[in-house]
């Protein structure tokens, strides 16, 4: 187990290096003088001078990279040109909002995807199986921002049941908070539910075919007891770790979902930064998502090894 951990953690170091080079390199894609491009349309000479100083633009590239990494190691992600605030503060401020949305979306995904996958596997090759498989394909093919617009049209504009946009913190009113997040969480969760359903289904199909399940049946256990107590336990191992891998899809989806429902989270932060050409914010957000993804996957791998002893060797 220790050897596995060492190997797994050692793999992260080069990955972190390349991630940092990639994100630092984004700046080099800007056409012309980066300070001029980052200063925005006003091209305030004071701002340009500040940027040259801040990003050490007069120094050679490798030196700039080292200085940039040093800054990040000290928690300095740069400063938003538009809002004139440290990027770190902006990210920390938006993180809880997206965290809640992503958490609810994951609940939606698990609540739909896992039962649908079990049912499809148990009723293999029946109308239920085909129906669930088609529904999953729907979920994977529907652009989530369009689904969001359609839901607003139905539940907000036509029926008037749910607010179309806006966000209320749980501290202000938990009920209002959940009401504003129902539609976004469903929009974000449905594509992941589709992936979960496909994986649960194929994992269950494999497990249901195995010897120990046959033994459990031979013992005379009821079919649902076999499925839920014996088969599902093993089938869920890959599905649980899938949750970490789907984190990226969740954040990608959050960008668009938050835009459609005007939720002031992480995704809205990057979109506003895109509109304002606020490059430091874009870099900061990308860096944070990459770090979160790398460490979530590390934890998922460790959890997987703990659950599955065969992988520890």
């Amino acid at each position, binding site marked *: 187990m220790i050897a596995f951990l060492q190997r797994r953690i050692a793999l992260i170091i080069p990955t972190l290096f390349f991630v940092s080079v990639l994100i630092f390199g984004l700046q080099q894609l800007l056409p012309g003088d980066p300070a001029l491009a980052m200063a925005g349309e006003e091209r305030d000479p004071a701002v340009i001078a500040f940027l040259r100083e801040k990003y050490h633009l007069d120094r050679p590239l490798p030196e700039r990279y080292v200085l940039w990494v040093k800054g990040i190691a000290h928690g300095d992600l740069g400063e938003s040109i538009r809002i004139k605030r440290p990027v770190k503060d902006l990210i920390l401020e938006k993180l809880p909002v997206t965290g809640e949305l992503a958490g609810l979306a994951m609940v939606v995904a698990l609540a739909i995807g896992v039962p649908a996958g079990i049912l499809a596997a148990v009723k293999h090759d029946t109308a239920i199986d085909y129906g669930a498989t088609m529904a999953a394909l729907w979920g994977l093919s529907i652009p989530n*921002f369009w689904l969001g617009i359609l839901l607003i049209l139905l539940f907000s504009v036509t029926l008037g049941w749910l607010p179309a946009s806006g966000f209320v913190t749980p501290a202000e009113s938990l009920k209002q908070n959940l009401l504003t997040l129902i539609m976004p969480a469903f929009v974000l969760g449905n594509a992941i539910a589709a992936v979960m359903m496909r994986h649960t289904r194929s994992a269950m199909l494999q497990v249901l075919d195995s010897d120990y399940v046959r033994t459990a049946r031979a013992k005379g256990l009821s079919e649902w007891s076999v499925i839920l107590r014996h088969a599902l336990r093993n089938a869920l191992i890959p599905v649980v770790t899938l949750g970490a891998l789907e984190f990226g899809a969740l954040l990608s989806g959050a960008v668009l979902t938050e835009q459609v429902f005007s939720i002031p989270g992480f995704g809205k932060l990057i979109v506003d930064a895109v509109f304002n050409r606020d490059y430091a914010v874009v870099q900061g957000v990308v860096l944070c998502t990459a770090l979160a993804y790398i460490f979530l996957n590390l934890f998922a791998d460790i959890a997987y090894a703990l659950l599955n002893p065969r992988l520890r060797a």
Partner: protein
Amino acid sequence: MTAEPLAAALIAVERAEAPWQRTLRQLAHRRLAMAGLAVVLFFIVLAILAPLVSPYDPLATSWSAVRKPPSFAHPFGTDEIGRDVLARIIWGSRASLAAGLVSVSLALAAGVPIGLISGYLGGFVDGMLMRMIDAMLAIPFLILAIALAVFLGPSLANAMIAIGVSQTPIFARLTRGQVLVVKHEDYIEAARAVGNSHHRIVLRHILPNIVPPLLVQATLAAAAAIIAEASLSFLGLGEQPPDPSWGSMLNTAKNFVSQAPWMALWPGLAIFLLVLSLNLFGDGLRDALDPRRG
């Protein structure tokens, strides 16, 4: 001797149907995959014939026809400055299909060589290349595409480059995995024993044998690229106004959901249909290429 004619007959049967013929036969039996292919072909024909089949100029505004609901004159209605939505859907198919084709071609052109080198050489080169690929995969696909598109500047061409780069690691990983499987097959050993150069072994012996999974992935990646292009256009990072694209049409439509819902209906339906069809075709292709089935 009866063995000889039998063996000859067996060879004849095998010769009669090449693997690609078997795949095509399998594919033709899959109704959903064929339906998917038909819809994709329909959109391709629509995009090519846009100047002939479009009822109006997609850029022509009309102040007397602002936000008109679907009617005989405008079957899909008109938008906020009186442009015909049907015409914009037809012309907009060009941006979506171009994104699917160009992005995936870029991703294949970059990812396959990386995967071939990495898988064939192994060792340090493999380790370094795969850590680079890990780094790219650590950034969620759409967020990487957004970041690249922002720094490159907003345009359809840059959006396609951004999507292509973001899809490269998937193809590199897939190619590498396939090379590792094929590399130790007897026929590769034989090719090496005969004295073929590395270059020739990789291009003439390994590559042709890993095409099927790449083909399936390319179809599914095209579907993902079309959604990504629509997403970038939705965020103003793709096709620039007034040129039509389904994503940017939805971006505008979002502001008129209560007054003109048809503006949001058609572009989304078009994206959905095209992506669903590509996914259906890709799934069918994967099943048809799988020798264990059928």
